[in-house]
């Protein structure tokens, strides 16, 4: 085919425009995923939020100089004015799979600064520095040591959320972002919230293409005045990849079992939350440890709660599936024996609150199991025939976060959806043991 000069000219213009379009799109796409400096600031509490925290962040270039500067008064990010610094920062390159690379998330480095002997109930202002990059100043508030009341957020399953595209790993996760914005509003209107206890399954995997966006979205929980919502971490069945260990390091100072992701968090004088790990051996050492903890705390604390990922009483998945039966068989007899006050479960992607259950049957003195995960993840439907979600229990299908307050008089919880509507409420008085 022979082209005329005019046709050649137009062809050249079309080819040029196409090339320019492709290059432009590539440049825009590249710019979106190119990061520099430090990002993903977060604070993690483990056993004692009143004195110990881990400040973590992501940096994007290799450097030996990773430092946390902190103080009990604001220093407006002027590094020389901060009275405290932590130079012993656990840092390393975040593992990237081939899919992470093809998804286009930038290479990153994890950084964890563990700080101890903090003052209880105190504001801690901090900045982090990696190489030449310095973050803005943020702050967090340590937990109280003597308070007889505690308030915290709890929710699980934030691994997806958004209409299109839905495939795991891609952003934006609009539902998750909306839930995070809701948590920020709750945090701002309830400044006494200590932390978000996360029921796990952060991303579809704990590979970087998922955790990167989870950390991006988590920034939405930070208040307008830069207060960070601390996290208490548990481990779920989608958190198996090495990225979980790299990015959710729980410190050296803590007890040995903490790095197996089961530990007890002290909340003031009157409450403990025992975080368990369904993603390891749940009998054996963990079971022995659970019994020891309940022996220690059941009679000395007014409120004893347990938090773990895989439910004993699944409200949507197969009740008889081994995955859940093993939790029921191994742990619930112990919960029953020590009469824990509330069990927090995730995994199913529904909203549920069971009737009080003791020895596998409804019993007014039994344990209520709540949750199943709704921090943005697409919601399934509960099985309405299940005996344990009949009134006074409930089941539903909406994203939610729980606001739980523990006082000397009562345990009160509200499940709140992304629009701020209270979709479930429950309260109970302390047990007379």
């Amino acid at each position: 085919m022979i082209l005329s000069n005019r046709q050649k000219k137009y062809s050249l213009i079309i080819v040029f425009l196409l090339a320019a379009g492709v290059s432009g799109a590539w440049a825009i796409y590249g710019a979106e995923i190119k990061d520099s400096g430090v990002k993903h600031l977060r604070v993690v509490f483990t056993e004692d939020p009143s004195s110990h925290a881990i400040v973590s962040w992501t940096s994007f270039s290799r450097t030996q100089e990773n430092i946390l500067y902190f103080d009990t008064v604001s220093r407006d990010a002027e590094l020389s004015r901060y009275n405290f610094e932590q130079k012993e920062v656990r840092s390393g390159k975040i593992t990237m799979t081939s899919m992470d690379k093809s998804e286009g998330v930038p290479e990153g480095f994890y950084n964890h600064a563990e700080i101890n002997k903090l003052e209880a109930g105190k504001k801690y202002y901090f900045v982090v520095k990696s190489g030449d990059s310095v973050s803005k100043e943020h702050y967090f508030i340590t937990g109280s040591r003597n308070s007889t009341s505690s308030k915290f957020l709890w929710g699980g399953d934030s691994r997806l959320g958004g209409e299109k595209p839905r495939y795991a790993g891609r952003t934006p996760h609009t539902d998750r972002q909306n839930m995070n914005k809701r948590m920020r509003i709750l945090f701002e209107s309830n400044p006494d919230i200590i932390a978000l206890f996360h029921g796990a399954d952060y991303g579809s995997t704990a590979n970087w293409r998922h955790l990167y966006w989870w950390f991006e979205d988590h920034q939405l929980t930070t208040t307008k005045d830069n207060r960070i919502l601390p996290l208490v971490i548990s481990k779920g069945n989608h958190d198996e990849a090495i990225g979980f260990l790299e990015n959710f390091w729980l410190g050296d100072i803590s007890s040995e079992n903490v790095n197996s992701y089961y530990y007890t968090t002290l909340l003031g004088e009157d409450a403990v939350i025992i975080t368990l790990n369904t993603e390891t051996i749940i009998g054996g050492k963990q079971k022995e440890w659970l019994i020891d903890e309940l022996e220690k705390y059941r009679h000395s604390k007014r409120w004893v709660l347990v938090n773990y990922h895989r439910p004993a009483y699944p409200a949507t998945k197969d009740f008889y599936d081994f995955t859940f039966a093993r939790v029921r068989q191994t742990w619930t007899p112990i919960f029953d024996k020590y009469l824990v006050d509330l069990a927090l479960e995730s995994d199913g992607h529904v909203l549920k609150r069971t009737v009080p259950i003791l020895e596998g049957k409804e019993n007014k003195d039994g344990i209520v199991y709540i949750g199943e995960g709704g921090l943005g993840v697409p919601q399934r439907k509960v099985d309405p025939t299940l005996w344990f979600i009949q009134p006074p229990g409930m089941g539903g299908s909406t994203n939610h976060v729980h606001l739980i307050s523990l006082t000397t008089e009562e345990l009160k919880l509200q499940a709140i959806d992304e629009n701020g509507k209270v979709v479930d409420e429950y309260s109970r008085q302390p047990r007379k043991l």
Partner: protein
Amino acid sequence: MNKTTLFEPLMFGRISIFIYVVGLYLSLNSGSVLGSVLFMDYGVPVDQSKQIEKTIAAIFLILGFISLMPKIWYGIPLVGIGAFILAYLTQDFGGGFFTKWSLISHSPRYLLPFGLVFLTFENTKKVGIQLFRVGVVLVFFIHGLESLQSHPYFAEYILNSFEYVGIPVHEDQALLMMKIIGGIDILVAALVLFSPSVFIYAWASFWVLITFVIRFLSFGWLMHKEVLLRWPNLVLPLILLSIMLIEGKKKNNESVFQT
């Protein structure tokens, strides 16, 4: 292809496919990885996902019944294709212990049907036997590896079954046992690969049976679905054992087991 007279291992294989399909039917009906993938990854409404699962479960059951008919073989590879797809989805979707190796650990589930089709015809019989051998090698190798890496479920099976029989063991002891078991499993895989024998197939069959028993001892009748799904793990070494014994009786000079 010349069709041979059906001999006992073939019928056992067909019955076993049916047993596996019953497990699959129960699994799909009560919610499986297929429903999760449809709902979570592709946004299919949850009710439709469940309906699709149930429909596929019914199709599998029909294929299972067809597999029982001695003169009809074409339903069998369809079961194999289905089992392969489910293994792939399990691996891709993740969310379970060692699901990253599901294509390998589930291999008997799809190699049983494929191998059985080859085994049906005299001129492809050797291919069938080799596929079965590959299945035994893979399943023992990967479970050995999982055992060496302290698979939590395996540890719980040991802890619970020992407790059941009144000899409680500590977690450290259970993990030590798993190291030994894992080593033996990998040795079995190597022997099946390089030096198959009646003894090694008998051991492999016996060991799979033991793993079924400890599942029941650990978590009771609820494990029936898990055991039905793993039925092909037992069938492959058993069929290889029976063929080897039959061949031995015939005293053929040329063994089909020569590599």
